[in-house]
């Protein structure tokens, strides 16, 4: 008994795990059967099922657009019809026209049927109007019952009312009595103002202020950036060229000073002094002014030093008497040079420095102001955050009050709603009903905003959801009626065009066959009509109506209509399939390619392996021991890298042997053939089990070695050869990378590459097609695998497991 119980638990755990593990498989199956866009749906599974994805992939229907483009090719005698005789063209044309007409008839029938269903639904709703209204009323009653909220203390209530009146503008004063709230909230106005309103106003003011600060800072930042840039530029000039120059001036001046201050020697010289002193004084004056500029740090010292030096020289010069000494002559020539250089430089420097100092001042001023303001802003921001938190905390205290008031408001609305809808009859008054429910919805949502209890919320929401059918039903009415009218008109017009095409088509075929290609105007017009006006004008309404019908199956309160809604949904879906533009898929082609490639590769490599394994099993020769193993080792080389060499080789061969080049199945097969030796081991092992006495007997009878192999060993080994063929087939079928490198055209893809395109690019969200295509390829492989399980496991383990 105990053992059994334990197993029971194991079973449950195992089942849960299996379900979890196989969930992706379940998902693929269910998604491939879905009719809606699974990638955008809010549901994991859907009840709107169809085999349409498989139909589109495997048995694509020649729908209207396909037929039209087919007729276009026939009448212009272009591919694939360019080589066919006129008679067969005409025949095909006629059958296409018949099909076009068939689609017109089918569309009409579909609309007729949906119209019938629709009017049935309308009648049903009319007959059951009272019941439906009653149902809504009972929902509203449930709502009213669920909405009861405990009345909070008077103070909280009163302050909540004040704040509701003032801040949220959700209620007006005179309404209060209507909804049965009798609190003298006027008394609490002061308290409300103190506790809430003042804070709120403060916050608002501060927000305003912060905004203005931010604006100011923004504009200041611009100036700041400009000055910063300018300052950097000027600073660079100052440091790189002016200051070094000044330093050299200083040195010159020091030399000049030394010359003068030295005791004069006895050598006399004639000094030709002209304007040197005036020039010097001019420079001196400028430098004096330079000194007044506000410049920082080391640079300032250099300038001060310059001024100091000049003053020294000036003083010494003015007091100097021995003006015919050699010292003086040297001095003058030095000063001459100094003047020549300095006059120009100092003037320029003056301009630059004056600009620099003003820029620097401005820059410093603005940046100071900027930091000040930013600090202020940060301060204000943190302050306002604090205030807001505080305010929210206080506000929270009054939430129950607000909720209570709002619940009263909703109650009032509900009561008046019930009164209002008493006189309604469906489906005549559906619009009015819809609008009132919308108002109701909004009011309830307003209330839910003030409530924190999530359980309460979800129960209210569940109640409200019971009214959703009204909006959906209104949607259906609106969209379906529009669709029905448009679609009828559309089909009628389509008939006219088709008749036109039918009458001119055959002439066009003849004339195209004679070299004059005429395009049929009606055909072109119809083509653009179906291609562009159908999705724009009809398909959108159709889609919404169809979705509404499907939703109503769940939402509609009475279950009698489910069948009819479903019918509408399905018929509309079929209608869409006739007219909508569909991508051409190559799944068959891909599978065919894969089977061809994998089949050839499997048979060839198995034969090669069967041959090569024989000597390893029966004969003694050099290299036997390490032969297979070194083969296996060589195959450890990443096969993808063969492609660098083989790619060039294939493209080279392709020029001489086109079917073996790049982008051909032949080339792919060729590359796959390199995958030998993996199964040689398996075959060799099987050969070992065949008793060699059989062969010996045959050889005594005169058979050659080759004959014994071919006639005896190979037939006996056929089971394992079959297994190897299937295993290789599966392995090749599942190969993706090499195929992706070699194949470029969609039509030449193998299944693996093709499926990959289904999962990327524009198909990324087309889950229906992708999962259907995946399942189509997956199923045979899984079945093959499960039936080959025994050998697969054996083959995989045999290489390493002994015994």
């Amino acid at each position: 008994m105990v053992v059994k119980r334990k197993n029971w638990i194991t079973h449950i755990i195992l089942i849960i795990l299996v379900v979890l593990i196989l969930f992706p498989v379940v998902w693929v199956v269910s998604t491939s059967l879905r009719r809606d866009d699974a990638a955008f749906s809010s549901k994991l599974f859907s009840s709107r099922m169809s085999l349409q994805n498989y139909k589109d992939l495997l048995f694509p229907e020649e729908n209207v657009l396909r037929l039209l483009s087919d007729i276009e090719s026939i009448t212009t005698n272009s591919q694939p019809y360019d080589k066919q005789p006129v008679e067969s063209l005409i025949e095909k044309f006629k059958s296409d026209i018949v099909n076009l007409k068939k689609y017109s008839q089918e569309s009409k029938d579909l609309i007729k049927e949906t119209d019938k269903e629709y009017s049935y639904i309308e009648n049903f709703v009319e007959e059951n109007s009272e019941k439906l209204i009653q149902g809504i009323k009972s929902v509203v009653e449930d709502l009213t019952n669920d909405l009861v909220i405990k009345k909070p203390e008077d103070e909280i209530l009163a302050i909540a009312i004040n704040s509701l009146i003032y801040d949220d503008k959700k209620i007006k004063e005179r309404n209060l009595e209507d909804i049965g709230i009798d609190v003298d909230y006027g008394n609490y106005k002061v308290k409300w103002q103190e506790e809430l309103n003042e804070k709120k106003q403060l916050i608002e003011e501060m927000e305003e202020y912060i905004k203005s600060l931010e604006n100011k800072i923004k504009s200041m930042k611009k100036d700041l950036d400009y000055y910063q840039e300018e300052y950097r530029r000027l600073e660079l000039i100052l440091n790189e060229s002016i200051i070094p120059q000044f330093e050299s001036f200083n040195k010159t001046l020091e030399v000049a000073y030394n010359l003068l201050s030295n005791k004069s020697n006895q050598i006399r010289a004639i000094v030709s002094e002209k304007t040197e002193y005036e020039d010097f004084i001019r420079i001196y004056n400028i430098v004096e002014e330079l000194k007044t500029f506000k410049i920082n740090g080391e640079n300032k010292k250099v300038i001060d030093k310059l001024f100091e030096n000049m003053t020294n020289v000036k003083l010494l010069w003015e007091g100097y008497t021995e003006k015919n000494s050699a010292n003086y002559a040297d001095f003058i020539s030095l000063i001459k040079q100094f003047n020549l250089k300095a006059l120009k430089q100092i003037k320029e420097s003056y301009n630059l420095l004056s600009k620099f100092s003003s820029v620097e001042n401005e820059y410093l001023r603005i940046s100071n102001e900027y930091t000040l303001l930013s600090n202020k802003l940060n301060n204000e921001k943190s302050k306002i955050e604090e205030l807001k938190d505080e305010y929210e905390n206080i506000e929270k205290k009054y939430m129950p009050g607000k909720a209570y008031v709002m619940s009263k408001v909703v109650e009032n609305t509900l009561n008046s709603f019930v009164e209002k809808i008493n006189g309604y009859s469906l489906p005549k008054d559906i619009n009015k009903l819809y609008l009132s429910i919308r108002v109701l919805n909004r009011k309830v949502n307003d209330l839910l905003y003030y409530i924190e209890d999530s359980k309460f919320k979800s129960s209210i929401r569940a109640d409200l959801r019971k009214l959703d059918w009204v909006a959906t039903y209104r949607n259906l009415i609106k969209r379906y009626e529009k669709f029905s009218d448009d679609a009828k008109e559309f089909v009628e017009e389509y008939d006219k065009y088709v008749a036109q095409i039918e009458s001119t088509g055959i002439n066009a075929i003849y004339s195209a066959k004679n070299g004059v290609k005429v395009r049929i105007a009606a055909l072109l017009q119809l083509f653009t009509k179906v291609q562009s006006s159908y999705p724009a004008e009809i398909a959108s309404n159709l889609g919404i109506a169809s979705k509404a019908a499907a939703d109503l199956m769940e939402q509609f309160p009475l279950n009698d209509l489910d069948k009819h809604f479903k019918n509408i949904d399905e018929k509309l879906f079929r209608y869409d399939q006739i007219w909508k533009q569909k991508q051409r898929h190559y799944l068959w082609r891909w599978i065919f390619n894969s089977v061809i490639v994998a089949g050839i590769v499997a048979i060839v490599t198995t034969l090669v392996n069967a041959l090569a394994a024989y000597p390893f099993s029966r004969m003694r020769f050099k290299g036997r021991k390490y032969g297979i193993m070194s083969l296996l080792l060589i195959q450890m080389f990443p096969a993808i890298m063969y492609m660098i060499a083989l790619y060039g080789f294939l493209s080279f061969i392709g020029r001489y042997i086109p079917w073996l080049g790049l982008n051909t199945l032949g080339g792919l097969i060729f590359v796959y053939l390199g995958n030998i030796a993996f199964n040689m081991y398996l075959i060799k092992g099987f050969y070992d089990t065949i008793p060699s006495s059989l062969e010996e007997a045959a050889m005594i009878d005169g058979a050659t070695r080759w004959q014994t192999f071919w006639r005896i060993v190979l037939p006996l080994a056929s089971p394992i050869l079959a297994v190897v063929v299937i295993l290789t087939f599966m392995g090749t079928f599942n190969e993706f990378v090499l195929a992706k490198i070699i194949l470029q055209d969609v039509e030449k893809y193998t299944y693996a590459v093709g499926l990959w395109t289904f999962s990327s690019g524009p198909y990324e969200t087309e889950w229906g097609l992708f999962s259907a295509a995946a399942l189509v390829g997956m199923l045979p492989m899984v079945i093959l695998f499960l039936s080959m399980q025994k050998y697969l496991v054996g083959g995989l383990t045999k290489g390493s497991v002994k015994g």
Partner: protein
Amino acid sequence: MGKLWKIVGYIFLALFNAFSIWGASFLFSRGFYELSITFFVLVFLIDYFVLNKNAYPYRYMIPAVILLFVLVLYPITFTIKTAFTNYGTGHIMTRQEVVDRLLTDPIYTYVPDDAKNYDYQIFVRYEGIEPTEEFKMIVINEKGEKYLVGNIKEIRVQAGKMILGEAELIPMEKVETLKEDGKIIAIIDDEKTYNYFYSPNDKETAINEIFFKSKIAFPILSKVEIVDNQRNRLSLRFSEDGTLKLVQIKHLYRMALSEVIENGKTVVKTTLVNDKYNRPLLEENGTFYDFNEDGEKVPILGYISTVGGKNFTKIFTDPTVSGPFTKIFLWNFTYAALSVLFTFIIGLLFALVLNNRTLGGKAIYRTLLIIPWAIPAFISVLIWKNGFFNETYGVINRFIVENIFNGNPIKWMTNPFWAKVAVLIVNTWLGFPYMMTVSLGALQSIPEELYEAASIDGASKSQRFWKITFPLLMTTIAPLLVGSFAFNFNNFVNIYLLTSGGPAIPNTTTPAGATDILISYTYKLAFEAGRGQDFGFASAISILIFFIVAGISFVNFRISGSFEEVNR
């Protein structure tokens, strides 16, 4: 009868020899040296097998040897050679091809300063009222003399398309024409009539300009050089006002003798010389460089050249390569090890549960649990990627993370950590059934008596597992775990299809991604041209991979005694 067969066999062998040797020489002449050598060796081997009686066993292996040589050994030698070259984007052609191209390609031409302008007229054959692409051209020189452009000879062809053509001028006396008011309105040649269609200076034909440009000038004429009787070369070039003018052109590069300093000695060599400035080109690192007006080096074309061990040393020395490479290398090992660990643990757990004798329906569970292995891996990976790990639409983010845990969507594809988690989840899902199956097999081969003896001795359940089951299990499973490690080490499809190796690692010069393993990194280097292909580096890494995996496998064979088994 036997003799007849023998003779037929020898004739066949002779034919095979002739064909293979011809093929090998042909390949040699086209620059496929390794392949050609492969063929020669192959022919030699096969002849030896067939002609030497002692080599009889090898005759059975001839087909396998052929496939092996062409499809495995040749690519491997090619890869090894490539690993020591700079083969890749910018270095695709051989040096000879590059020189040829520089000498002949219309791109490398220039219009000399004293170039002459020529007027021209185009005549086109009509089919009904539609003009066709068959045309004749008349060239009018400065003196007003007219010449017909003769048939275009194809000088260089690539992939069936003409790259360079040449045509001569024929005096008009030899051409049959129709004239009206002294103007040529049609040319008759080879019984076909070509009507006057377009001339750049004739405003009346301006409506034909588009047709002329798109159907005649660009696809054909722009690649043709017309040679006049003074050996001047003329070709269509865009002038500054956007019209196509027929002007005299010269080739920018020519071969000439010039002095080059090589290894400190001055050598006279034939080199490429820029004709316009009369300067020899510089050849460095497998690239030809020209100089622009400022004397700066400008690379023009690169060719495949040997770079020594640079592709290997760069893994360690170049920080933009070695950084991501180390990451990839470590992740590769982590990925393989964790995959083996997870699949083994889960597989073993299932195997232990299913090994219970009293459990009913074992076969069903086993079959169901094997399904992830049975589904072709690429399909499963695509399903996981598309349906489950998609960041916006995926089932995991939309239904599990958001609805059940109320969390933010997980960035499966853009966050390195989560991308790695995704890769491991999928790989575990794919791999555990294999581990389960082999463990189950191993468990069943453990003799029951051992347990009975142990329980008599009073061993507890966990003792029985750790002392009996696990050690016995490991002796059979350990080689498989190593094999599984080697397999996962190169499990390219899973990584490539799920994340493509992404998200990308920042600050690197190679296309490395956070979930990249060595093989996918190599693949990206070689075949995804986003940042340029680098076959040389890719080959170097693949050699590295080979040594790692072959090393692991060799040890594994040794341990499991497979070599001995062959010898049995």
